C-alpha cells in the first residue's frame, strides 16, 4: 500500500476507521466526511455536512466509529453536544441522537469495545458522560473534579474500565458501573495531559502531555509504575500504539513539529521512524489494522495514508561516531557498539547478525569512548613546545642565535631544522656581512690587509656553502650528512672570526687561521653550544627589563643603507656574468678590483621558509624571520600578507600550548604593525582599593575615595610593591608575587584576614 492523500476544504481535527479498516470518517470545524480507502486513492462516500440545516453540532472535535456496528458514528461537537450518526439514513435523520448535556466543548468520544450502543464522552467542563444510543439522555455521569477532561479511552483488557486524562496532569481510571468515585487516580505529568492510549496487548497506558513527554504506565498493580518516558521535541497531542509491535507508539505534536513520529519506547530519545508529509501539525493518527499502514489528519486540511516503507529514519542520519584530536595530539574516539542483552562484553567489531531486523537493533545503541594518548617521547607537538621555549630570538648576535637554535633543534631530534639554522647562519652570517661591506667599499680596504690565499679559501667556502644551501633549500628534508659537517666547520670559522676579533678588524695569517679553525671545529663538536652560551652570557645578556631594546641595535651588521648596493647598477652586470670558475683569477690579481659576484640567497631562503610553512611548521619560518632581523629587508619577494599569516599561525599555536611568554615575545619582536599592535591592546587592568573596594580608575596606587595608598602595598610585608603585583579580584587584596605564592602554598584565606577564600592557582 502506498502513500495517498486527499485535501479537504478546512482543517481536520480527528479521524476514525470502521471496524474492518476499509472506510475512514474525518471531522473538523468545517469538514465531516466518510471516505472509502481504495488501493491508490480515497473515495468520498458521503459528506455529512451536505445537509441544509448546519449548526454547531456539525463541527467536530472528535469522531468515533462504532466498534460493533459499521453504521454508527459518534462525534464530539465544539458546542458541547455529543451526536450519534446513522449512516443508513439520510438528511436530517442521520443525526440520530444529540446529547446536549455537557456545558462546554466535548474533547473526546469513545465507543465501548464490546458492548454495542455504548459510548463515553469527555468534556472541557470536567465531566465524563456514559451514553446508550437507545436512550435520550446519559446513563451515567462521572465527575473528574478537574478543570477539563482531554481524553477518555475504554480499556481493551478490562471491559468496564476506562481511563480519563485531564489538564491538571492526572490520570483517572473509572469503572462504568461506579459513578461516585474513580478506581484509581495518579498524577502522571507536570503539565496538561492531552491524550492517552491503552496498549492493545500489554497492560500499559501511554499518556502524552504538554511537558513534551510520553509516559508509559504499567497499571497491573495497585500503584501505577512508570515504565518508560519518551522525551520529544514538542507538546504531544495524540498517541497511538502501533499494532503488532509491542514497543512502538506513534505520536503527533500539538505545536512546532508537523511530523508523525513512531517511537521505540526502549530508545526514548530519537524516533524510530518519522513521517514528514504534513505541512501543518497532525491532529490524529489511526493504524489501519496492521503495522505498516496508518492514516493521519492534519490542520493542513489533508488526510494522508502513510506507508511505512516511505518513512524517514532520523537515527540513520545520525553520525554514529565521534572523533577529535587535541592540541597535544591525543585522540578521542567514540563509536557505536552493539549492546547484547545476554552478554556485557563490549567488542570493537560490529556484530554481524543477518537475522535481526532494523527494529530489533534499533533500541540497542550505546557508544564507547576511548582516548588515545600520544606517548611517544619525540613527536612533532612536544618538540614544538621544546623549540618554542628554547629558541633564542633576540638579544644576541645573529650567528650566535643561529648556532644556539641549531643546537636546540638538534637536541630534540630535528636535524633538518637544525640544518636550516646553520644554513641561514651561513647565508646571512658574519661572512655575508663582510662581503657586503667589501662590495660597498669596492673590496679595497680589506683586500689590502688580507692574505690573498686566505681570502680565496674563504670565498671557496662561501661558494661551496652557497651551493650547498641552494641544494638544501630546494629539498631540505633529504639533507646529506656531509653538508652538515661542512656547515659545522664553516660555523666554527665564523665563530673564530667573531671571538678572535670582536670588532671585525680583519687581519691574520693563514697558519694562524688554520690552527684556530681546527681547534674550534673540534671544540664545536665537543659541545660548542655550552661554550657559546658561556661567552654569550658575558657578552650579550642584558637585564631582563620590561622593555627590551630591540636586538637590531646590537646587531653588528652594517647599517641598512649599505645593502641596496646589492642592486646598484655599477656592478650588477658583472655579478651576473661572472662565474665560480673565474673567481680565483680575479681574487689573486687584486689590482683589478672587480666587484665580487654575490649570490643572493634570499630567493632560496624564501622558498625554504615557504616550504616549512606549507608543511605546517610555521615555527621554523617565523623564528628564522625574527632572528634574521634587518636581513629581512633582503627578502623582497616575501609579501607581508604571507608573513602576517605565518605570524598569526605561530601565535595561535603558542596560545594553544599556553606559551604566553613566547607569544608575547613573538608579538613584541614582530615587525609587522598589525601584529605588534596586539601587545598594546587591552593591557590595562584596573585594581580596586584594598580598603573600600572602589575601582582605582585614575591611578593604581591612590584611592580617590578614601585617599589610602594601601593598594600599592603588599599585604604581607607592607612594603610598596615594585614590579609584579598579584591581587585577588574577590577581595582586592594583593602583594608581591613571591609573598603571595608562599602564603597560598600554606593557606587558603586572604593574608589580610578579611576572611575571603582567595583562589590562587
Amino acid at each position, binding site marked *: 500500500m502506498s502513500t495517498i492523500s486527499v485535501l479537504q476544504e478546512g482543517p481536520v481535527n480527528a479521524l476514525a476507521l470502521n471496524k474492518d479498516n476499509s472506510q475512514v470518517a474525518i471531522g473538523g470545524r468545517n469538514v465531516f466526511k466518510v471516505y472509502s480507502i481504495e488501493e491508490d486513492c480515497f473515495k468520498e462516500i458521503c459528506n455529512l455536512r451536505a445537509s441544509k440545516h448546519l449548526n454547531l453540532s456539525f463541527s467536530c472535535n472528535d469522531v468515533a466509529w462504532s466498534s460493533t456496528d459499521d453504521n454508527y458514528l459518534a462525534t464530539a461537537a465544539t458546542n458541547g453536544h455529543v451526536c450519534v450518526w446513522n449512516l443508513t439514513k439520510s438528511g436530517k435523520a442521520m443525526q440520530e441522537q444529540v446529547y446536549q448535556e455537557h456545558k462546554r466543548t466535548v474533547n473526546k468520544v469513545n465507543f465501548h469495545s464490546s458492548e454495542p450502543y455504548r459510548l463515553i464522552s469527555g468534556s472541557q467542563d470536567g465531566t465524563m458522560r456514559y451514553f446508550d444510543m437507545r436512550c435520550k439522555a446519559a446513563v451515567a455521569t462521572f465527575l473528574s473534579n478537574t478543570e477539563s477532561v482531554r481524553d477518555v479511552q475504554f480499556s481493551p483488557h478490562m471491559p468496564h474500565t476506562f481511563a480519563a486524562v485531564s489538564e491538571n496532569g492526572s490520570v483517572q481510571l473509572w469503572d462504568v458501573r461506579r459513578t461516585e468515585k474513580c478506581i484509581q487516580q495518579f498524577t502522571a505529568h507536570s503539565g496538561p495531559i492531552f491524550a492517552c492510549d491503552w496498549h492493545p496487548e500489554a497492560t500499559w497506558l501511554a499518556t502524552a502531555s504538554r511537558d513534551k513527554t510520553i509516559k508509559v504506565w504499567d497499571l497491573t498493580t495497585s500503584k501505577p509504575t512508570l515504565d518508560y518516558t519518551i522525551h520529544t521535541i514538542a507538546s504531544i497531542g495524540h498517541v497511538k500504539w502501533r499494532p503488532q509491535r509491542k514497543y512502538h507508539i506513534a505520536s503527533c505534536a500539538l505545536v*512546532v513539529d508537523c511530523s508523525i513520529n513512531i517511537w521505540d519506547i526502549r530508545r526514548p530519545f*530519537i524516533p524510530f521512524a518519522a513521517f514528514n508529509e504534513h505541512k501543518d501539525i497532525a491532529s490524529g493518527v489511526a493504524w489501519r489494522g496492521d503495522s505498516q499502514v496508518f492514516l493521519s489528519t492534519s490542520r493542513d486540511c489533508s488526510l494522508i495514508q502513510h506507508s511505512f516503507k516511505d518513512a524517514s529514519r532520523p537515527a540513520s*542520519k545520525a553520525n554514529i561516531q565521534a572523533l577529535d584530536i587535541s*592540541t597535544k595530539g591525543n585522540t578521542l574516539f567514540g563509536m557505536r557498539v552493539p549492546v547484547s542483552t545476554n552478554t556485557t562484553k563490549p567488542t570493537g567489531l*560490529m556484530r554481524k547478525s543477518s537475522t535481526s531486523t532494523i527494529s530489533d537493533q534499533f533500541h540497542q545503541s550505546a557508544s564507547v*569512548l*576511548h582516548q588515545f594518548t*600520544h606517548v611517544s617521547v619525540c613527536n612533532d607537538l612536544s618538540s614544538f613546545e621544546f623549540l618554542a621555549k628554547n629558541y633564542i630570538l633576540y638579544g644576541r648576535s645573529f650567528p650566535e642565535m643561529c648556532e644556539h637554535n641549531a643546537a636546540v633543534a638538534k637536541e630534540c631530534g630535528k636535524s633538518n631544522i637544525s640544518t636550516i639554522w646553520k644554513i641561514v647562519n651561513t647565508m646571512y652570517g658574519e661572512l655575508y656581512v663582510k662581503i657586503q661591506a667589501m662590495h660597498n667599499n669596492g673590496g679595497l680596504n680589506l683586500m689590502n690587509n688580507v692574505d690573498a690565499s686566505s681570502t680565496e679559501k674563504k670565498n671557496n667556502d662561501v661558494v661551496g656553502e652557497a651551493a650547498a644551501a641552494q641544494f638544501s633549500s630546494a629539498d631540505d*628534508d633529504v639533507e646529506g650528512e656531509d653538508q652538515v659537517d661542512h656547515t659545522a666547520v664553516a660555523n666554527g670559522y665564523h665563530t673564530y672570526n667573531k671571538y678572535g676579533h670582536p670588532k671585525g678588524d680583519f687581519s691574520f695569517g693563514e697558519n694562524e687561521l688554520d690552527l684556530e679553525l681546527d681547534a674550534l671545529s673540534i671544540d664545536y663538536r665537543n659541545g660548542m653550544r655550552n661554550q657559546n652560551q658561556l661567552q654569550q652570557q658575558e657578552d650579550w645578556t642584558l637585564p631582563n627589563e620590561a622593555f627590551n631594546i630591540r636586538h637590531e641595535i646590537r646587531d653588528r651588521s652594517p647599517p641598512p643603507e649599505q645593502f641596496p648596493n646589492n642592486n646598484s647598477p655599477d656592478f650588477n652586470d658583472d655579478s651576473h656574468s661572472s662565474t665560480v670558475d673565474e673567481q680565483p683569477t680575479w681574487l689573486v690579481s687584486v689590482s683589478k678590483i672587480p666587484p665580487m659576484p654575490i649570490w643572493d640567497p634570499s630567493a632560496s631562503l624564501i622558498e625554504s621558509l615557504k616550504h616549512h610553512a606549507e608543511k605546517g611548521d610555521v615555527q621554523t619560518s617565523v623564528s628564522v624571520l625574527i632572528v634574521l632581523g634587518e636581513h629581512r629587508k633582503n627578502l623582497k619577494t616575501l609579501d607581508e600578507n604571507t608573513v602576517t599569516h605565518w605570524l598569526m*599561525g605561530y601565535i595561535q599555536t603558542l596560545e594553544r600550548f599556553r606559551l604566553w611568554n613566547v607569544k608575547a615575545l613573538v608579538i613584541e619582536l614582530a615587525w609587522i604593525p598589525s601584529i605588534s599592535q596586539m601587545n598594546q591592546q587591552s593591557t590595562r587592568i584596573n585594581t580596586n582599593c584594598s580598603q573600600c573596594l572602589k575601582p582605582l580608575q585614575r591611578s593604581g596606587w591612590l584611592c580617590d575615595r578614601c585617599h589610602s595608598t594601601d593598594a600599592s602595598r603588599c599585604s604581607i610585608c607592607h612594603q610598596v610593591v615594585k614590579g609584579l603585583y598579584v591581587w585577588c579580584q574577590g577581595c582586592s587584596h594583593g602583594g608581591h608575587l613571591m609573598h603571595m605564592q608562599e602564603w597560598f602554598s600554606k593557606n587558603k584565606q586572604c593574608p589580610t584576614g578579611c576572611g575571603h577564600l582567595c583562589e590562587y592557582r
Partner: protein
Amino acid sequence: MFEAAEINAEHKDLIHDVAYDFYGNRMATCSSDQYVKVWDQIGNEKWTLTSSWKAHSGSVWKVTWAHPEFGQVLATCSFDRTAAVWEEIIGETPGPGERGTRHWVRRTNLVDSRTSVTDVKFGPKCLGLQLATCSADGIIRIYEAPDVMNLSQWTLQHEITCKLSCSCLSWNPSLTNNHPQMIAVGSDDNTAQTGKVFIFEYSENSRRWMKIETIITIMEPVHDISFAPNLGRSYHILAVATKDVKIINLTPIKDNSSIQSGLTKLDVQTVAQFTDHTCTVWRASWNVTGTVLATSGDDGCVRMFKMNYINSWKPVTVLKGDGAVIPNDAHRGSIASSTGVLTPPITQTARYIKLGSISQPRDLPWH
C-alpha cells in the same frame, strides 16, 4: 605510539560528538540521550566529569567550543530543531577546599530552523563571535553576537539556502583577513546525483554569502567535512568523509576575472583518496597544525594520514576503537593506498562573480 584508555562516559545512547577545547584540557561529549557532559583533565590524570546536563529535548548531534577568549562557551545543536549556546558560570560560594560549583547556563536558544539542526560551528576568532548552523532542510544560518560580552543576544545575519539536506559544515579557519570568510558544507542526501560538497564565501561587495564552488566529484553522502588548520599555507585543505576519505586542496587563483568579480576562484584538486576503511567513513578531524588527518569509519578504526616530504598523503597509524593499536598496519595501509587509491588528480575550475577584500577587519580587544 599511542596508549588507549577507555572513558566511561555513561551516556545512555550513542555519543554523536566529542570536542576538545582550545587547549585540550577539557572535553565535551554529546549524545542522543539529550545530555551534554563536560570533562576536565588536570595534569595527565584521568578525565573527571565536571558537568552533565540535559541540553535539548532531542538527540544532541554536535558540540563545539568557542575560543577561550570568549569565556568557557559551548554550542550544541539537536534533533529538536534548535541550537543552543552555553556558558559555564562558577557559583558564588565555593566550599572550603572546593573549586567552586560550576554549572552551565543556556545563554541562547536559536529556534529558526524548522528541521533538525545537524551541525554547529563557531567562526574563526578574528571574526568575533559568529556561529554557523546547518539543518536537514538545507539551510545554513550565520548568527553573530554583536557584543562578545553578551552571549544571550544573537542575531541571524545570513540564511543561505543549499538545495540538499546538510549534514556537516566547516569554517575555513584562516587566521588573517587575507582570506575571505569561507564555509564548506556537506550533504548526506543519497538521492540526487549531484555534488555533495559546497563552498560558500562571504562577499564583502554584496554583503552576502555566495556559493563559489560545488565539488562535483563527490556524489556520495557526506558525513563529515573539515578544513585543515591553516597556519601558513597559501591554499586550503579540506578533508571529506564519505564512503572513503578524500583530501582536497583548494587553491585560490588570483587572476583578473576573480578580482573583477570579487569572488575567489578556486582550483579544486583531489590530492588523496583513501579506501582504507573499506566502508563508510563517519568522521574526519585534523590535528592543530593541520599536518595529520584522523578519520574513523564503520570498521571501528581510527586511521591517521600524514603528508610526506613530497607532498603526498600516506597512512601512518591505525587505532582500533576498542583500544588496541594495530602494529605495522600503517605499512600495509600505505601499500594498499599507493597501489589502488591515488587517482589522477581531477582538476576543475569554476568562475563566479564577486570578490571583496575584507576592508574592515573587525577590531577585537585582545585579551
